[in-house]
């Protein structure tokens, strides 16, 4: 080898620890998909540990939203905040958690622009594990936000007509919807070149869907062309089911539509994300 002839002084510098670390170890077997996903979930948890501000969006955000809309519109729309909360809280819950899902795409976009993604791509792993692991932790984040909103709602006088089972069912439907929706943002995260443009496009999609829905008002009060959009808006469908479950009035049809629309979103965007992920330049 070249260095043995030309650079004798480097021989002396060679450190034993280095040689030892480079001695050949048996190559471990490939990790399975579950273990790889859990490793990525661990990474996402570490990120929260190192940057606790990351939890701002699932803690402070929901509190501000709930307080703001309750007191801003409460008196005007429903006459009293207590009554309005009865109607509003399920909608605010859905809206807030839906907004939080956008961060999933941003994290993925950052991994790609910073080059971490390249490292994952050269490892012998089931590639989608990187996304699955991150989404698992996101579900935990969505649960935190849900708990905070419901807890604060109770403090403000929210008294659902349904039982605990209905409440848990409502959160379950919402988590499933959020998980499905996350794939839309991962798809965009792979397509958009910068965080800024990603943020902008996500917002442009998010705003009409959340505001032109039944979150704030009863769609029956809207002009008919708007009402027909509101009626097929997946967010409305989910709000309908969540509201129904919380108040014990949900029909299986309502729940069915919410789950079906979530499922359709996932069936389209999860494979699309995977395809883009594998074929990313």
């Amino acid at each position, binding site marked *: *080898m*070249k260095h043995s002839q030309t650079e004798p002084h480097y021989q002396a510098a060679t450190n034993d*620890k280095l040689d030892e670390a480079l001695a050949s170890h048996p190559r471990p077997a490939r*990790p399975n998909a579950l273990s790889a996903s859990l490793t990525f979930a661990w990474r996402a948890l*570490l*990120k929260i540990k190192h940057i606790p501000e990351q939890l701002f969006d699932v803690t402070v955000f929901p509190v501000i939203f709930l307080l703001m809309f309750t007191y801003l519109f409460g008196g005007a729309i429903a006459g009293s905040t207590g009554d309005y909360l009865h109607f509003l809280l399920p909608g605010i819950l859905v809206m807030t958690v839906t907004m939080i899902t956008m961060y999933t795409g941003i994290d993925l976009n950052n991994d790609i622009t910073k*080059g971490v993604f*390249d490292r994952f791509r050269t*490892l012998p792993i089931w590639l989608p594990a990187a996304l699955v692991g991150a989404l698992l932790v996101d579900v935990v984040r969505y649960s935190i936000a849900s708990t905070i909103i419901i807890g604060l709602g109770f403090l403000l006088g929210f008294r659902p007509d349904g039982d605990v089972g209905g409440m848990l069912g409502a959160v379950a439907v919402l988590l499933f919807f959020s998980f499905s929706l996350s794939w839309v943002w991962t798809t965009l995260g792979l397509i958009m070149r910068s965080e800024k443009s990603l943020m902008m496009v996500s917002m442009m999609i998010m705003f009409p869907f959340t505001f032109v829905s039944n979150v704030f008002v009863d769609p029956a009060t809207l002009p008919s062309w708007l009402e027909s959009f509101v009626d097929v808006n997946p967010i409305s469908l989910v709000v309908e089911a969540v509201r129904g479950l919380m108040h014990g009035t949900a029909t299986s049809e309502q729940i069915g539509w919410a789950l079906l629309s979530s499922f359709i979103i996932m069936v389209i965007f999860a494979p699309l994300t995977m395809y883009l992920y594998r074929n990313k330049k």
Partner: protein
Amino acid sequence: MTYKSRATHEGDVAIEATQLVKAFGITRAVDGVNLSIPKGSVYGFLGPNGAGKTTTIRMLSTLLAPDEGNATILGYDLKKEAAEIRARVSLTGQFASVDENLTGLENLIMVARLSGYARKQAKDRAYELLSAFDLEEAARRQVKKYSGGMRRRLDIAASIVVLPELLFLDEPTTGLDPRSRNHVWEIVRALVTAGTTVLLTTQYLDEADQLADRIAVIDKGKVIAEGTSAELKASVGSGTLHVRLQDPDTRPEAEQILTNTLGTAVQLSSDPTALSAHVSVTSRASKALDELAKANISITDFSLGQPSLDEVFLTLTGQPPEEEHTSEENIS
């Protein structure tokens, strides 16, 4: 060049590439690169910004599909057996590909777990590498607080958690101070001793000279010369003689004398008193200075420098097109 038949997996060729092409829009980033790189060596890609080094490396490490051409990596077909290749090669990219938010320790444990190590073994391996790469003290610090040299070493450590048969290092020392640079060089040498073939890119002739057994000079997506550093230097001349005259009026005469004694073209710089010329044999330089003295041309300053990358490039690319063609044939 004929397409080489598929090498056996036990063969001694690490990389055999034929006519690799990659275009981004109208930019032909890699424009017909052929390579044959033996196992167990350090191979250097030398070239200026935008030469196509990174693009070539990304293709060879399966991160980017070539538009044209193909390659055999460790005996496996780049297009058809990417998974086999990924299990055996590793890449340390030009820009650190470690997670900035995590600590050094966490980064290495993560890569070890993703490489298939069990929890305990992953931790042991991470500590072993941190200590070997002199990062023990920073183990529990977030990578965003690391210096450039530390980050580089961590990045390389992450690439060799499982020792690869072939390691790509994209500009491993750009932006590092001399001490950090030596540290990286030491790691590269230890890797080769351990049996890993290393392909590295660099913009410094000096680095290629110190580390690489063979060098490919790349410019505008093409390999414009290939060989050992001795061969390359010989093609450029052993160095450059820079002379500064007392009186600018004597420059034409000095140019004549240098041209005659050195037998090469003399370059006139914008400084009216300065001139320089390639020197293939060092003794000719002193003869040339002698001749200047005999002709009563006073010199204020002279130096004989090793050829710089600039000079290699000037010589290799500054030739008329038909000659450039002959240097291209060095490839095969």
